[in-house]
Structure formats: C-alpha cells, structure tokens
C-alpha cells in the first residue's frame, strides 16, 4: 500500500507476531506496520472483523496492538524502538496482558 520515499532513516529492528520487521527511527508502530505491508493490526472485540490503522492521529483507536506485552496500545502514537515486540490483537484483550 505504501512505500518509503527516502530510505535514509536509521534502521530499527522490531518483531511483529514473531517475525522480524525493519522499521526506521521516526516510525510509529502503526507506520511501521503499514510500511511493512501488514494488512491488519487487530480484529475487533465485537465481531472479530479485521481492522488497520485509519487516522494515524490518535482519534480512531483502530491501531490498537499489543506492544512489549501490554495490550490495547495506540500504535500510531508510539515510536518504535530496537527490539520492540508488537503483536496483532485478536478480539478482546486478555486481562493481565
């Protein structure tokens, strides 16, 4: 869907659902997922429909993902860091995670 304009930024290695993804410094989690061509970042807790980042400005809450073990984080507001673990959130969140 998206390509990087200038591949200049410093590389940041993150892991998405167990697979390595090459992000860049300055990426938010949501942007890194879009750049990596990942279709959806969660399924809804109501009907299980797939969803992907929609607004990238913090208002829609479609970008909710599990980041470093903590669920329901707004991916479009969180900058990536080396070694970050991102997981697709499936349906309802599990208490304690």
């Amino acid at each position: 869907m998206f390509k990087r304009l200038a591949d200049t930024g410093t590389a940041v290695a993150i892991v998405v659902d167990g697979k390595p993804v090459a992000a860049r410094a300055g990426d938010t989690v949501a942007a890194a997922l879009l750049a990596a061509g990942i279709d959806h970042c969660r399924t809804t807790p109501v009907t299980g429909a797939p969803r992907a980042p929609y607004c990238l400005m913090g208002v829609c809450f479609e970008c909710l993902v599990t980041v470093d073990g903590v669920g329901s984080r707004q991916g479009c507001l969180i900058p990536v860091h080396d070694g970050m673990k991102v997981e697709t959130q499936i349906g309802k969140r599990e208490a304690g995670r």
Partner: protein
Amino acid sequence: MTAASDLAPSYDLVVIGGGPAGLAAASLAARAGVSTVLFDENPGVGGQIYRAITTTPVADRAVLGEDYWAGAELASEAKASGALIVNGATVWSLDPQKIVGVSIAGKARMIEAKHVIIATGSQERPFPIPGWTLPGVMTAGGAQTALKAQGLVPSGRTVMAGTGPLLWLLAAQTLRAGGRIDAILDTTPWRNWLQALVHLPDFALSPYFAKGLALLREVKAKVPVHRIDRVGAVGKEKLSEVVFASGGRERRLPADLLLLHQGVVPNVNLANAAGVEHVWNDRQLCFVPVLDADFGSSVPGIAVTGDGAGIAGGTAAAERGRIAAIAAVRALRPEATLPDTQAIRQKLQREEMGRAFLDWLNRPAESFRQPEGETLACRCEEVTAKQVRDMARIGCEGPNQMKAFLRCGMGPCQGRLCGLTVTELIAAERKMTPAEVGYYRLRPPVKPITLAELASLPISEAERKAVER
C-alpha cells in the same frame, strides 16, 4: 524527556496541544513571563498541519510545500520561549476547577492550572460509507501524516474520495513525492455553488484563492477526476475495489488503498468533558464551543483556540493562539508587556476571509453524512445506521439515550468517529435540527488510561469514605 514525576504540581498556564495554535500560545505566554507547560500526545510538536516539522524525512521542500515549512519557525520559537514542552503527554481529564489529568509513559498526574488553553485542533469528519472499516481504507489525513512523519507514499492502486481543500493538497503532495493515485472521486455536490457563490469575492481576496486554483490545476493535469454521488469500499478481509456511482451509473475500480476525506471538524472531546458549552454550526456542520472575542469559553479560565474553536486553518490557528495567550497573560501577569493585539486581529481577519466560501462549497452532501442500512455508524461498537435510525423512530431523541440503547460512542474512540453521524441520523429521523438533538455528554478519561494509573491518583478522606464501607 520529561517524566510525569518531573512536573510541578501547578503551572500558571497549561496549553493542551502542540499544533500552530498551542505553539504560538505557549511561546507568547512564556515570553511574557508566565510559567507555561504545553502537553501534546504526539511524539513531536507541529500538530496536524506541521506534523513532524522537526523530524520529517521528506527533504525535498517542494514536496510538502512552503506552507508546511512555515511551521519550523513556530516550533523553534516555542522551544526558545522558555515554555516546558512535553510530548507523548496525553491529557485525559480537565474539569471546571482547571485540574488537568495528564498521562506520560503510563504514569498519570493531576496538575493544577490557573489558566488553561485548549488547542487540541481538529480531526477529519466521519465519512461513514459502506465498507469504511475495511483494512485498506484510511483517511486522507492519515496518509498525509504518514508522508510528513515517515516519508511514506501510496504505492499500490490508490483511489481518493471526498471533498475539501485538504484532499487536493494531499493529492498534490503525493504526486510530487512520486506516489501513485489512480483516480479522485469528487463528492462535492454541484448545488453547493449556489450558496458558495456569494462568498466568492471575499475568497478571491484571501490567500487561499490563488493557492487553491494552482493545486486543482496541478492535480487535475495528472489524475482522472470523477464527480460522484455514491461510493463504497468492497472486499473480504481487506479492500479489493471501490464502487462508485454518478447519477445511477455504477462503476468499479480495483484498489489497494482508498483515502477518504470530507473536511475537518473541531476535536470537541476535552472541552466538552470540561463542561464548555457548545453550539451547532450549520455552515460547518459540527459543534463548536461558545467563545468570546479572546477565545474564552463558558468555563472561566478555560480558552479554546485554533481549529478547535471552529475551522479556520493553520495560519489562523496560530493567530488565534496568540489572542488567547494575550488574554491569559493579562489575567495572570498584568504588568507584562504584550504585542499589539489589534495587528494580530487584523491578520486573523484576513486569514478567515475566504472561509465562508470554502465551507459552503465543500459542505459534504447528506448522503455522505447520514448513512443507511448496514453501514456502520459507530466503528468501535459496530452499530449500524439502521439500528440508530430504528431506535430514533421508536422514540429515542438524543445521542445520550442512543448510547445507552446501542452502545454507540461507548468504545475507545469515545464517539469521535460516530458522534456527528449519530446526531445527524437522529435529527433526520425525528425531524429535528442537530442543534435540538445535541451531542454526547463526555466524561473523563477522554483518552483511555489504565486502572493502575487511575488508582495512583490522590484520594481524600471524604473520597475514600464514599466508597469504603
């Protein structure tokens, strides 16, 4: 990085939002000697128009245009002003006593303010069409943010749909950056010209006139544009095609990305939760706060400025921020020397001049604001337009009762993506005006915080007694 624990218990002025309005307000106040803190939830300052102004990887200045780069000065002024600027700081509560609840890196604090300037800006108007929740459908503003902040451009088969100046701006920026746009579906109703035309002379004098025309020409030379009156996204797990129609003739375009935009509306959540009175603005089809000439709201000591006060654009937002800041400084530190308000008001007036024309021309058609049938009105709780309409028909005449009945507006976005739709659907079904129907009454936290953060806040003896038995 400022941590929650680094914050003082109180500041004279708390500015919420680091777009042009907030940056201009915070710089002016701090320079006038007022102790000022600015909170913004984004990783960097700039707000929507100047997103990632200090970090953007887009080096070629022509891509984003000079209007974008104008933000660099605002950002550096603010940095030098002495205001404490805290990014990654989400304000989740504000009450009439001007206690600000803020969360930074998972730690919440309550900060006292003598004066508060809300500069939380705007968001894109909900665009509830069939299939708008499919992965592959995004807002045009979202795509623009990805361009500004991360240098991402659409590369697959891309369709843009909607109305308003921002749609054309993004199209131009995308094309300049070498991105791909297969088609633009223009939803602007022809009849809008009837109301817009009388305001054309004013618009012709405003700075937006020449810029706007040039943009249209630039884009139309490269991309096919279709006037349409219906559009939908189709796909199983993600977008596969865009269906659109004009005068009954249906067409389909295979697509990987559909970018939607039909204008921006004030981000009312925080002001609403603080008890600020709002009214319906029929020209801009949204709720706006009731404000005095200095952007002071119905709650003493709380101002709402920038596009949050009603849409007027980024340059106007900065001037509005300055006016709100001058009022704050006058109240907090009367002895301070201040810039000439008259000159600022004149600049603002010039900026706002073309607005009526733009508003009337780009007023989205009813069919794009008042969905039907199975189209989702509320994305979070997956409530359909039909459900909302049915409940309205059996007597539900307001959004707060609707929320209780259907859970629309109860999800994490707190009504940001359904509020206007629900108000308009009820108005349509019950033959009322949106002003009569009203809006959701919002409550803290206006952005989610964790239970542990809430639990960590100060508790008085009386408050504990109200719960423990």
